[in-house]
């Protein structure tokens, strides 16, 4: 019985596309020097952040060709570690803003924290996969 839920492998490519679209839109807007209102800018920024988050979520929680219980366990460990890192980020970030940048303390937006968690998870997950492959290659040689 397999109770480990993951998205199908196709979602990984879909996730990459979801990340690429807002980046392309941002580059195009910058290159074409399109003049947009503040409301449109805020809407585009919010939508872009949401799409990037969704893309990163699909990238980490979709099936890989070498997926099995160990990789699933690694995902779970990384999820716990990233939650811990998010709490540290939540505490430290306003302090850095206040003491180093002499800025006023603002409440952290949810999307910023979720993005931080997903970036951390993606980097760590791919690094661990790379490490496993490296160890296997070293074992063979």
């Amino acid at each position, binding site marked *: 019985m397999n109770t480990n839920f993951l998205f199908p492998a196709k979602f990984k490519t879909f996730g990459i596309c979801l990340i690429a679209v807002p980046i392309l839109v941002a580059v195009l807007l910058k290159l074409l020097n399109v003049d947009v209102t503040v409301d449109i800018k805020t809407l585009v920024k919010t939508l872009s952040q949401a799409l990037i988050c969704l893309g990163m979520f699909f990238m980490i929680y979709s099936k890989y060709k070498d997926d099995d219980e160990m990789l699933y366990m690694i995902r779970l460990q990384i999820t716990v570690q990233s939650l811990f890192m998010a709490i540290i980020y939540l505490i430290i970030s306003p302090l850095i803003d206040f003491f180093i940048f002499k800025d006023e303390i603002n409440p952290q937006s949810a999307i910023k924290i979720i993005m931080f968690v997903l970036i951390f998870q993606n980097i760590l997950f791919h690094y661990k996969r790379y490490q496993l492959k490296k*160890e296997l290659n070293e074992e063979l040689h």
Partner: protein
Amino acid sequence: MKNYIKIERARHNLTQGDLAEKVGVSRQTINSIETKKYIPSAVLALKIAKIFNIPLNSLFELEEHD
């Protein structure tokens, strides 16, 4: 947790890849179990023991710190 997978694999003339294919996991997982970096689930441990046709406690052994 100590395990004798490498020894049993050699006895049965199986490569890590062969064993991985038989139990439905990646070669990295078998390698990580052999090098004690990953403790398999009960289901996977039973599958491996079944391949070698030996009881589970002959394949895995608890160590002092476990």
